[in-house]
């Protein structure tokens, strides 16, 4: 019988490069049964690469791994999953077009075969049980997966991993896609797993979360292991310092109480959408940072889309007040100086196969013209280059495809694109999702300086500290309605905010 403390997975001298980029540089790791090991480091420090090599998604360039004392070199994640190593990936890990049950039992269909046919009913029933076991409600296993939102799909993915009864569970930056209740389910799952002497590797950018749940932390920087720290030696400042390699200001939100102008720049006049919103009113002022928070299903993401003309507004209208323009299409919004950062970065905010440069310059086709319709390549290069320098986007060259960047650097590219365009009204949906503290601080700084320059910004977020830290005014939504409105000048009271949310 497996005992607590026994070594489950050992990684020795793991090395991986992508072209000239070294992602993992001779890393040693030891994962013990009954233990939650946290991996922490800045964006691009190699966390995801290590877990994806262990899970068979990628192959190491060199180095060795041992799993239960045997040599471990899975060729695919399916092979790894069959032998007890499951991974929850950072972004979408489910197939949208097949049913929930088919996702949960992917690769295991033969268990449900009767003759040449698959017994769908049996599969659905068992999938329902798996979901119930981890405490997920409100998901019908027979429905196609695309009918569920990102958070629910993440929970389906967790169910999929658990259905394979893994010995080693790798959780790659999943918390940011989950709301409070979703996180609870995940924490419960990993603690249950370690109690039955399985092991968990947990990646997150949220240091507090890691310190709360992990037994041991491994700090990575530039693909190297910097330190291993046991639970009783956890010290946030020490960990941050080691992650970044320098001293770090503890406070990174704005500290002022500057107000905003009375002038309304954008208003939603009793807008109703197909889902979530019913006669919703909103005013955004010049120089204001307006925070919008709530539980993930409260309609705030729909609101952000509707304000940018991405959602069908069946009644009422969104208006830009200065020109009295009705925003009903994204190109109208864009033309009138609005910008939008989607929550779903890879799917909606980036052209992954295109270069950093092509992505950033996509907002500047007009600005970078030189003569009539002709675009100056030099102007474009400068346009993108300025953002790469200012945001310190880690890359080998400006022509590197965005797909090869780490999550945080991708997010910087999205930010750069809109900053370069100098949008007057910016709608940011979960702008710091999956981004490490260094980058976060830079982004908060940017948002603040944009406010100073008279821009108006809407931040939609599931993180209360971020909303409290940045907003001039904070709206809490519940079931598509404003359930609470708070002002920075009055000070934000966490309890009242949470009360408004639930």
């Amino acid at each position, binding site marked *: 019988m497996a005992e607590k403390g026994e070594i489950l997975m050992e990684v020795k001298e793991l090395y991986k490069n992508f072209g*000239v980029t070294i992602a993992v540089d001779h890393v040693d790791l030891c994962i013990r049964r009954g233990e939650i090991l946290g991996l922490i480091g800045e964006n691009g420090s190699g966390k995801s*690469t290590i877990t994806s090599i262990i899970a068979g998604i990628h192959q190491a360039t060199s180095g060795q791994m041992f799993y239960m004392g045997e040599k471990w070199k899975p060729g695919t994640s399916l092979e790894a999953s069959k032998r007890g190593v499951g991974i929850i*990936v950072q972004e979408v890990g489910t197939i949208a077009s097949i049913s929930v049950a088919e996702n949960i039992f992917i690769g295991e269909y033969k268990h449900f075969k009767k003759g040449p046919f698959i017994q769908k009913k049996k599969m659905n029933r068992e999938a329902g049980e798996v979901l119930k076991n981890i405490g997920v409600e409100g998901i019908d296993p027979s429905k196609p997966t695309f009918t569920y939102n990102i958070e629910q799909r993440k929970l389906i993915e967790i169910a999929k991993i658990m259905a394979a009864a893994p010995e080693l569970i790798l959780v790659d930056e999943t918390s940011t896609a989950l709301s409070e209740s979703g996180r609870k389910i995940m924490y419960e799952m990993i603690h249950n797993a370690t109690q039955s002497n399985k092991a968990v590797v947990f990646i997150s950018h949220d240091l507090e979360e890691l310190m709360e749940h992990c037994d041991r932390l491994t700090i990575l920087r530039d693909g190297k292991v910097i330190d291993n720290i046991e639970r009783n030696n956890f010290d946030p400042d020490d960990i941050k310092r080691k992650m970044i390699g320098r001293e770090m200001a503890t406070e990174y939100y704005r500290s002022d109480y500057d107000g905003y102008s009375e002038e309304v720049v954008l208003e939603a006049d009793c807008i109703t959408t197909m889902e979530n919103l019913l006669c919703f009113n909103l005013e955004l002022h010049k120089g204001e940072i307006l925070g919008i928070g709530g539980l993930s299903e409260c309609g705030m993401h729909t609101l952000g889309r509707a304000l940018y003309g991405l959602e069908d507004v069946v009644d009422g209208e969104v208006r830009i007040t200065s020109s009295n323009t009705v925003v009903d299409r994204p190109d109208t919004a864009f033309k009138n100086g609005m910008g939008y950062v989607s929550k779903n970065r890879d799917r909606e905010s980036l*052209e992954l*196969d295109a270069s950093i440069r092509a992505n950033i310059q996509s907002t500047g086709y007009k600005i970078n013209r030189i003569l009539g319709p002709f*675009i100056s390549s030099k102007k474009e290069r400068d346009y993108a280059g300025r953002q790469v320098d200012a945001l310190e986007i880690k890359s080998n060259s400006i022509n590197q495809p965005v797909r090869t960047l780490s999550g945080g650097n991708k997010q910087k590219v999205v930010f750069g694109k809109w900053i370069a365009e100098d949008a007057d009204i910016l709608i940011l949906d979960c702008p710091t999702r999956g981004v490490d503290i260094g980058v976060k601080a830079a982004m908060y700084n940017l948002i603040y300086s944009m406010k100073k320059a008279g821009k108006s910004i809407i931040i939609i977020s599931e993180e209360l500290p971020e909303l409290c830290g940045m907003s001039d005014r904070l709206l809490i939504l519940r079931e598509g309605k404003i359930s609470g409105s708070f002002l920075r000048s009055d000070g934000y009271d966490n309890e009242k905010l949470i009360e408004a949310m639930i």
Partner: protein
Amino acid sequence: MQNPELLKKPGLTLADRIDRIKSKNSFSLLFPFIVLVFIVLLFGVLTKMEFYKMSVIISIFNQSLIVGTIAVGVSFIYSTGDIDFSVGNVMGLAATIGALSYQFTNNMVVLIMVTVAVGTLLMLFNCTLSLIFNVKSAMVAIIAMILYGAITTELVGVDTLKVDYILCRALESDGFRYVSFILYFVIAVVIFHYTAIGRKLRFIGGNEECAKQSGISFRKSKYIGFLIAGIGVGLAGVFQIARSGSVTSSVGSGMGMDVMLATVLGGMSIFGGAKSNAYSGFLGALTVSALNKGLLMVGISASIIQGVRGLIFLLLVFLNSERPSTLPSRQQF
């Protein structure tokens, strides 16, 4: 994070080395040119310099002209990640109506104008259908192919439509073809690579949703793409009339596939996106006709040529295929 030493690291397998070379940016850009130059050099040696005669070179150019012109135009559609393989039939119908208009008016200018206009209108019609029904142009193309083919057959009848021989000689030799092709080619390349139009089309091909959110109007861009493609297809119709002096009912059928093949051989993905360009199709068409001519000249029989061509294409497509090694993909399942 950079380590130039890595490129020189010993102990790599051949596959690794090929992959490494293939993943270089400059490789995919240069590869189609290298293939063309290689073919030209190879057949130059094999035919003891016969291959470099002016007449041979002109004939290769002429053969690639029709497919090449269409391919340049259609690259404006391919780059958005969409395909329209009815272009051959569009060209056929445009040529038919153009030839008919000549029979009525006996005017060369009318023939050219009508052919180009019909080609353009039909392509815009395809585009409109695809937008109205909200389906990919590839779907529309299936229907358009059958429809236009049928109309062409009906118009041409059992006979072939003859066009005045003297007119065709004039169109063929008076430099009209070269001037109009080069003009079209240069304008297309400039529009594609030096204005927002090309960038927007590529962006749509790379990520349609993201393009929308960045203020690009999908409808407008798509119409512009089809407009430019239509002009190219119409122009190719004029070349077609000039070349054969007549129009048959089967004119242009199957050419949609030749265009696709030429585009792929020229180094562009027919799935569009960031690496699209406007010249690959013509480059590929040149490669195909150089290969055809060369194989014929070294005395390989026509039936074997098909097989040899197939093998060579397979090899080229393999070498040209995209398999980039990247950081962890976020969409594993």
